[in-house]
């Protein structure tokens, strides 16, 4: 019995030593031993081979079926004026007053039915559909049995992911997080010498690098000359909480957010000891002026790290960018936009918070193949003369969407579970009324 436990301890010791030497130490010092690169190359080759096999087998079927990534309908996006004009061409214009005809409603009916069949917003809150299966059970939609080899690879994949990669990643994540807490607390004891800032940044980056290894993240940074500088505001599209890890791997940021309890609370308190982050109590969040003031103070201090904000306010599935809330753009200061795009082949990074809790989401991440993403740093933007916060926000949003290859939508992501404000409906009604009532000023009084 004793030998059994001795054996177990010995195995665990070896396991930990391997992890520390092969993964942690390179992570701490920022160099790579090439293990993850080899893994990624093997992975990509395997997926490519699997794709080819599936496509060959499905060649005839594909011709008949709808490819899942295509839409179901082609929407005619003519403007209201154009379409109603066409509808009315058949009628002579009445001499007096408005111009309502029974056929006007056809336009609205058609648009309404199109929305029922397929709409832009709700498809943004489910995971992106894959063109070809990536050998994960969770993305298995219509893919049937193709060949023995493929099924074997699939089975091997399950074994590798759940029995080898997942424990490894979980260990790394635990080590990374505990290191963050210990390290930042230790640094917090130092007085405010220059060395404190340097050490605090170092501690933060190491922790995030370890966490990134813990997710098998392969990140490509583009245009690093545009990296956010101190005293600025970094703005990015939001897909999951892991965005923070991705961005912080390449520099220090000051986080903004609500104070949480539990594990998150411990992390937050620890982080604040070594360098200033902006955490709000729940009650403070409601007071917009207070929030803006605190952020303004932080930004005006040029020694503090740039703030990291996700203006969408919610996680979206990384195929589009939703409305940016204007609050972040009213603070002043330089905005550094960043675009993040994940490659869905290797793992779906989108956190569907209504479907998965944080813990099950993290477990799903740790049992995916890997996390491959591209980060583009865009040139800094300032609010221009005569531009209000909403227009500025939209400008930044378009730039991010354009760079990341995402669709630029004007809908509010925060409303995915609530009803849309009536202002949009009123806009439509206003537009229609101007066509119906027209320039008949005499009846427009009051």
């Amino acid at each position: 019995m004793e030998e059994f436990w001795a054996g177990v301890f010995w195995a665990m010791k070896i396991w930990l030593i391997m992890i520390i030497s092969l993964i942690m130490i390179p992570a701490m010092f920022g160099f790579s031993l090439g293990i993850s690169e080899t893994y990624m190359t093997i992975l990509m080759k395997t997926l490519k081979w699997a794709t080819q096999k599936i496509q060959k087998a499905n060649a005839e079927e594909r011709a008949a079926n709808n490819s899942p990534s295509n839409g179901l309908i082609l929407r005619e996006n003519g403007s209201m004026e154009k379409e109603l004009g066409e509808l009315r061409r058949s009628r002579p214009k009445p001499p007096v007053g408005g111009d309502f005809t029974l056929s006007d409603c056809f336009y609205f009916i058609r648009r309404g039915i199109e929305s029922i069949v397929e709409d832009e917003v709700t498809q943004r809150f489910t995971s992106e559909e894959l063109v070809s299966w990536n050998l994960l059970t969770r993305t298995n939609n219509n893919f049937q049995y193709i060949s023995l080899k493929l099924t074997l690879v699939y089975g091997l994949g399950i074994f590798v992911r759940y029995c080898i990669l997942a424990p490894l990643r979980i260990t790394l994540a635990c080590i990374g997080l505990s290191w963050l807490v210990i390290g930042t607390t230790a640094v917090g004891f130092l007085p405010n010498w220059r060395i404190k800032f340097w050490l605090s940044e170092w501690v933060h980056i190491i922790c995030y690098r370890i966490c990134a290894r813990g997710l098998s993240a392969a990140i490509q940074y583009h245009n690093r000359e545009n990296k956010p500088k101190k005293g600025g505001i970094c703005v990015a599209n939001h897909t999951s909480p892991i965005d923070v890890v991705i961005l912080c791997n390449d520099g220090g940021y000051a986080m903004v957010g609500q104070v949480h309890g539990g594990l998150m609370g411990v992390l937050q308190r620890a982080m604040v000891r070594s360098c200033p982050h902006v955490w709000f109590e729940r009650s403070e969040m409601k007071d917009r002026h207070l929030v803006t003031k605190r952020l303004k103070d932080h930004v005006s201090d040029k020694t503090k790290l740039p703030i990291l904000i996700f203006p969408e306010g919610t996680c979206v599935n990384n195929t589009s960018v939703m409305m940016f809330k204007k609050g972040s753009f009213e603070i002043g200061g330089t905005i550094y936009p960043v675009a993040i795009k994940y490659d869905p082949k290797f793992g779906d990074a989108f956190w569907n918070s209504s479907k998965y809790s944080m813990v099950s989401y993290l477990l799903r991440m740790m049992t995916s193949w890997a996390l491959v993403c591209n980060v583009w740093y865009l040139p800094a933007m300032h609010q221009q003369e005569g531009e209000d916060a909403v227009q500025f926000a939209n400008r930044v949003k378009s730039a991010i969407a354009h760079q990341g290859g995402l669709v630029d939508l004007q809908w509010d992501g925060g409303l995915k579970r609530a009803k849309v404000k009536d202002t949009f409906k009123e806009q439509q009604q206003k537009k229609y009324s101007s066509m119906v009532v027209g320039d008949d000023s005499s009846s427009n009084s009051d």
Partner: protein
Amino acid sequence: MGSSSSNLNTIPNSQELMQETGFSAAHLLRLYERFEFLDKDNKGHLRPEDFEAVQELSTNPIGDIIIGSFFSPGQETVDFPSFVRILAHFRPAEKNRTRDGAQPEPANSSTGKLKFAFQLYDRDRDGKISREELLQVLRAMLEMQVTEEQLESMAERAIQEADLDEDDAISFDEFKKSLEKVNIDHKMSIHFMK
């Protein structure tokens, strides 16, 4: 995203539905996936709230009226066959179809589409669009933007133009006549992609 490996067999009466509505197997499958997607609680039928979750529909001035058209009077639920039958109205009409008097009018012919639009106005399904029913639709489309008098004068004018037998309401034939010059097929069709 669809549930795992749904194929035609999971849809009850799929062959009859395809016959009746003219949707291809692929389209029917996609519509079934959409139906399941809208049916968030997996009830097997849809209620008005499920339609209201579509944001774009909420910004449509007659969104509620369109939602209402899916439900027969007095019904609070719509099942998949009814869902598809309504959508079938919006398939582009087949050209060069030989008219066989015995066959029922398909949903996506010009007459079928007109009938759908007519029923949108004629909420109580009594075969005539009354002044009040017309006012209801006008009110929905314009709400705060115009006064009640303007609404009434618009309704008055529309009825005067269309009402041929002077019974102060618009019957289906009068409706059809007043819209005979409109390219119904083009305006009330949705392009389903192959």
